[in-house]
């Protein structure tokens, strides 16, 4: 036992060092990739002369040699300062993250909390009722969710449920009632993805030897399904869970746009489109920390859930 704890501690320490190095690599790669993008961050539709543009570049220190800018940026970063947006003067990236992340995270967590269990449940049902009407129904639902783009589903749900039936508010982010419709829309992808994978994996596990053993041991069907079949079927899905959770927490451009939600999703797209270097860097670093953290947790979980894969 003690040895195992020691190994675990060593493993965690190792991962920590690797994570910091990974993070530094991400920052560096991203910093230089961004500068390869064509265009000028201050070139907006308002007409400006080259001279004005040059002055603005100088004001923000973007006329310096790239390595100098990099060193300055890294220096500020070590102090925890992401700097100020180039596009939205006065908006500090730290403040933007602090004010928008909780919103996106709440929406993402709600969608995951609703989507994953629902998806798994549908997948299990479909697998257990294979070939019956329920299976076909679930398949049709999954097909619709996959085949119709989110922005169309969201717009239609908004039109019928909010505008025509007045069950929910149309848009904005004021109270729990305002979050229901966006949560459902955001979770549809998760639901259909999990339902589909779960169905397949359940069928795969169905014929493996340990189930026969379990049956031979005289376990009840419910016990077999819950403790053996589902548990084993879930394992492969955990691999991408970290990335997926991180992705959901970072917000969705489409959903946030359609429901006027003050989340992070819009910043990701708009800042890259508008070449808002500091904003992109801040968001990328923040996302990286979350993704790396989530993956780390998932890797630890992996060992717990599947005894065949042990921390070495």
């Amino acid at each position, binding site marked *: 036992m003690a040895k195992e704890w020691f190994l675990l501690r060593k493993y965690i320490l190792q991962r920590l060092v690797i994570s910091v190095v990974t993070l530094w690599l*991400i920052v560096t790669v*991203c910093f230089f*990739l961004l500068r390869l993008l064509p265009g000028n961050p201050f070139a907006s539709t308002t007409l400006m002369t080259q001279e004005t543009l040059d002055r603005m570049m100088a004001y923000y220190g973007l006329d310096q040699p790239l390595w100098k800018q990099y060193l300055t940026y890294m220096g500020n970063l070590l102090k925890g300062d992401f700097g100020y947006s180039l596009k939205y003067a006065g908006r500090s990236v730290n403040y933007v993250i602090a004010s928008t992340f909780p919103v996106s995270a709440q929406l993402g967590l709600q969608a995951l909390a609703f989507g994953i269990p629902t998806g798994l449940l549908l997948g299990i049902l479909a697998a257990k009722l294979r*070939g019956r009407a329920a299976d076909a129904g679930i398949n049709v639902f999954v097909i619709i969710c996959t085949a119709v783009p989110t922005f169309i589903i969201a717009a239609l749900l908004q039109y019928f449920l909010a505008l025509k039936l007045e069950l929910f508010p149309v848009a904005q982010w004021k109270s729990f009632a305002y979050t229901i419709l966006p949560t459902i829309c955001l979770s549809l992808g998760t639901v259909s993805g999990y339902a*589909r994978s779960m169905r*397949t994996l359940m069928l*795969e596990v169905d014929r493996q030897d340990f189930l026969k053993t379990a049956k031979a041991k005289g376990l009840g069907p419910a016990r077999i399904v819950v403790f053996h079949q589902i548990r084993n079927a879930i394992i492969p899905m955990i691999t991408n869970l970290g990335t997926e959770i991180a992705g959901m927490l970072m917000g969705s451009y489409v959903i946030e746009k359609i429901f006027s939600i003050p989340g992070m999703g819009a910043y990701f797209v708009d800042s890259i489109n508008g070449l808002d270097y500091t904003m992109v860097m801040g968001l990328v670093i923040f996302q990286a920390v979350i*993704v790396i953290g989530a993956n780390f947790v998932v890797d630890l979980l992996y060992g717990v859930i*599947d005894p065949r894969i042990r921390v070495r």
Partner: protein
Amino acid sequence: MEKEKQLAAVTVDPALCRPVDRSRLDTDQIVRPSVSYWAGVWRRLKQDKLAIFCASLLAVLILLAIFAPLFSPYRYDQTDLLSGNLPPSMEHWFGTDSAGRDMWTRVWVGARVSLAVGFIGAILPFVIGMFVGSVAGWFGGWIDMLIMRVIDIGLCIPSMIYVILILVYFGGGPQAIIIALAVMNWMGPARGYRGRILQFKNREFTLAAETLGATPMRIIYRHILPNILGNIVVSLTSFVPAAIFMEASLAFIGLGIAPPMTSLGQLASDGAGMYRTHFYQFIIPSLVISLIIFAFFMLGNCLRDALDPQLRDEMSTSALRKRRRAEQLAKSRKGAAK
């Protein structure tokens, strides 16, 4: 009740029991014709009516995409400013858009792009991801470590950045978009495939093959791959719609197919704003996308059944349905007889 019945069944007249004639029991007899794995897959697939239906649906869609624009009297980019927003009619089967362009032609031209991008753009990253993932999963150690870190970095940098870079250096054609999709999407499958390899690496049959001296490549492709191919095909077929939509969203931020060429995703997103005024402009491209995706999706399900070596005929969904139908038929006959 049940138990009593069973007990009743157990008490059998010993006279009915006699030793088996061993000469009639040829253990070496081949019950089924020995077929290779892929021939088996093909045989099972051929028997699946749903698979045939989906394959022919896909074939029809592909044929329409190839030939419909050729036989149309209109060019896909031919504007007719005085006949904009016409509902479907004999002249314009799918109506016209706001600039008076024939939607029938545009939809099928768009389907060309979407099919190509969706198909190649889904397979290419998957193959790359599978290869990288299996290398990482099998060899482990520092190779795994390196590959996983590259993936970590790649996944954390917004794909838009390198998509823009790729499109800047390769131009805005379908090839560039496929490359962009490959660069964007290989990491997810690689990670997933690595997980599957890890799962099967310590299995008995893998160990047995290893002990027998099989090379890693052989083990991966002959022993592990068939076991997880079903799952891979399912995710691959769900990658096709993802690729089609990714193209559409790239188009949305100006990184898609260069105008005046169009794609289904783009037509659908342009039409989305019209769903309350010109419903057909929104529903027709969406329906065609849905049909393509439906066909891929169901074909994927059928393929999954066909590809799985452990899944015998009696276990496949179609066989299950057949058996159930036969049972029901028997039951209803019994009922009729009573």
